[in-house]
């Protein structure tokens, strides 16, 4: 990462300002009225500002400011539940850049917001990195791939999929780029609780050789690296949304009166908020340190799982407490808390819930 501290600080200030000006929960409400699951206008603006190139080096068309900057962007925009493919974007970029000869043109198109790529990995109701049956069999000139992916986030919105499939002849996982026009792809799409859309994808395709990413390292290493970065980005989404929700609930407690006083003066509620504050502060501090270390190339193999486990559970708890502390009005569609609650449910399942990451953390530690 080549970005210096001043440039990164400037970026963070600009991102904060952009989020304040452009960020609004109304954007998500508007999305519900469309048949889209991605706020394309926001994505276009982010591309124009060069924000999508934050995690790409200059010689591949990016600004190389690193994950500290990118996750800060995600965090501030997630305060207003920005609904775009932050996570898939990071993972797609990582995967394309892991190729022996990086498809620089593809990376350029992704950064420019012209091509949206999503990751087709999950195959059941719960994510599992290795729970993959989709198989890619080598044939003359390429591969025949058979299988079914489930709950592919933004599956119907994307221009192409990075498909993770087993390659039986090599006893390994392979990564394949499949454009949406490829014959043999059948999509069923649906809306998730939080306004995003997901797709089940039936795959009966024949791909040429060059659709497979030829990697510089083992696919296991490449996927783990991309996955850990994706997890950091999901955690950023969770954290930003949790922070905004905390502020929202706190403001309500200071304003709402019952029994002749502000409900925020009741100690029971004060203590619940203080406990949430402690978790939030701890998570924020750990997150900032972890991301700084990542950009310093001090890799922590378990950091993705560590953060995701904590951040998604915290967001869920905050959302649950948020509804309870505010009461009846928080159950209305008109009030914003419900939108946070629903986003928390979806992000929890995205790329493995707390239990999944607890198990992953354990496995990674035991094998070290």
């Amino acid at each position: 990462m080549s970005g210096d501290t001043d440039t990164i600080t400037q970026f963070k200030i600009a991102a904060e300002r952009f989020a304040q000006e452009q960020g609004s929960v109304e954007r998500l409400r508007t999305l519900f009225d469309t048949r889209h699951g991605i706020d394309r206008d926001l994505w276009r603006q982010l591309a124009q500002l060069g924000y999508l190139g934050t995690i790409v080096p200059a010689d591949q068309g990016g600004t190389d400011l690193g994950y500290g900057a990118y996750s800060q962007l995600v965090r501030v925009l997630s305060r207003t539940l920005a609904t775009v493919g932050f996570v898939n974007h990071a993972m797609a970029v990582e995967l394309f850049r892991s190729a022996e000869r990086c498809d620089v043109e593809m990376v350029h198109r992704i950064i420019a917001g012209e091509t949206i790529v999503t990751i087709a990995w999950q195959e059941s109701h719960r994510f599992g990195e290795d729970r993959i049956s989709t198989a890619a069999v080598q044939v003359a000139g390429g591969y025949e791939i058979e299988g079914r992916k489930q709950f592919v986030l933004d599956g119907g919105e994307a221009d192409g999929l990075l498909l993770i499939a087993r390659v039986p002849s090599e006893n390994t996982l392979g990564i394949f780029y499949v454009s949406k026009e490829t014959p043999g792809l059948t999509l069923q799409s649906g809306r998730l609780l939080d306004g995003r859309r997901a797709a089940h994808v039936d795959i009966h395709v024949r791909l040429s050789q060059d659709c497979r990413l030829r990697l510089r390292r083992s696919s296991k290493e490449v996927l783990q690296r991309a996955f850990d970065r994706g997890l950091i980005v999901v955690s950023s989404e969770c954290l930003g949304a949790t922070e905004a929700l905390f502020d929202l609930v706190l403001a309500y407690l200071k304003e709402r009166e019952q029994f002749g006083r502000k409900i925020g003066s009741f100690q029971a509620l004060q203590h619940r908020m203080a406990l949430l504050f402690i978790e939030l502060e701890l998570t924020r501090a750990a997150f900032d340190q972890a991301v700084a270390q990542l950009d310093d190339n001090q890799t922590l193999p378990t950091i993705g799982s560590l953060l995701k486990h904590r951040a998604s559970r915290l967001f869920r708890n905050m959302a649950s407490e948020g509804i309870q502390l505010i009461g009846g009005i928080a159950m209305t569609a008109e009030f914003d808390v419900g939108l946070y609650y629903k986003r928390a449910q979806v992000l929890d399942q995205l790329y493995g819930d707390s239990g999944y990451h607890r198990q992953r953390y354990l496995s990674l530690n035991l094998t070290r």
Partner: protein
Amino acid sequence: MAKERVFETEVRRWLKTNCPPSLYGYQKNIWGGRRVRDLEVDTHVWQRRMAAKGWTVPEWPPEFGGAGLTIEEAKILAAVMRDLRCPQPLFEFGVTLLGPTLMAHATNEQKTQHLPEIAAGNIRWCQAFSEPAAGSDLASLGASAERRDDRYVLNGHKVWSTLGHHADWAFCLFRTSRDAPKHQGISLLLVDLESPGITVEPITLINGNEDFCEIFFDDVEVPIDSLVGLERDGWSYAKEILARERTAIATSSSSNDLVGEGTSESLLDLFTTLHPDPSLDAIALRDEIVDAEMDQACLWLASKSNVRGHPAAWAATLKVFGTELIKRRCDLRVRTMGCQGLGWDGELWSPEEHKLARQALWARALSIVGGTTEIQLNIIAKRALELPESDS
């Protein structure tokens, strides 16, 4: 930069020459005080040598027993000591809790009387604040200091004085005025525990230790210059001292070691050793353990950051998170060991197992000492969240 390297070289040379080899990696606290200062044992030879260098309190001014080091120099000294595994030469409440208050508020005579003795490890201090009827509500304390000519006469009953039965002097809170409003009638006094009329009695805790004491004051006469600062400012001095105490506990409970758990063996390793092929019921326990390990990893990361937001709120955050986590982890150790974690004494258990059982009992106090978890939540609600004053 070059000056710092010269300093580091000199520090390293001096430490290698003067730290007794038996003390490398020494883990226990090295206390000072009248009872031990002349002992001819390595710990106190070391303490006296470091005191002579001013390195028991490196950043204190030389006239008060320090070496007048800059922050950077003190960091270098600490780093080299860590590197060579030299132990801290003096563990002393007079240094950590009282010293800064004396430097800020005491008279020159008081500073000269007390600070060098503290720095030399000659006098050991304890804190006498809480009372049976004044714990969390410390400001409601009733022990009195009545002014009579050139003396104060002290009467009252203090409790929870850490290691009071080993201390020489105590810094205490007494009520000097019953007319003034609650917080303004409180004063900070320095008392020699050998004064007639003082009785110190240790309290036995559920872990068998006697770490806390009651101190009884029965018409104890002390000179007028026992008073620190102004009579009506005692509560503000107390708040400073309590904040320091809170920060110290916050730091130690989020430190990058397992000292709070009484062992150096990782919790997960303990489980894996005792359950190489865990049964279904043990797997539930393992999940709790991994959660605790992940919380620990996050705490260590978070504690590297600088103070965030309101300082009292950050200390409160670390204190609550850190102490509640130690309790949980000690508990998990005992549960992992099953009945092997329940030994009080006798040959069914190893000395290490006895120690772990008692450590887990001690851990319950961590969310009570230095301001209870509930008090910390109040602090956060007030200072960080700015919520309106609570009921009553």
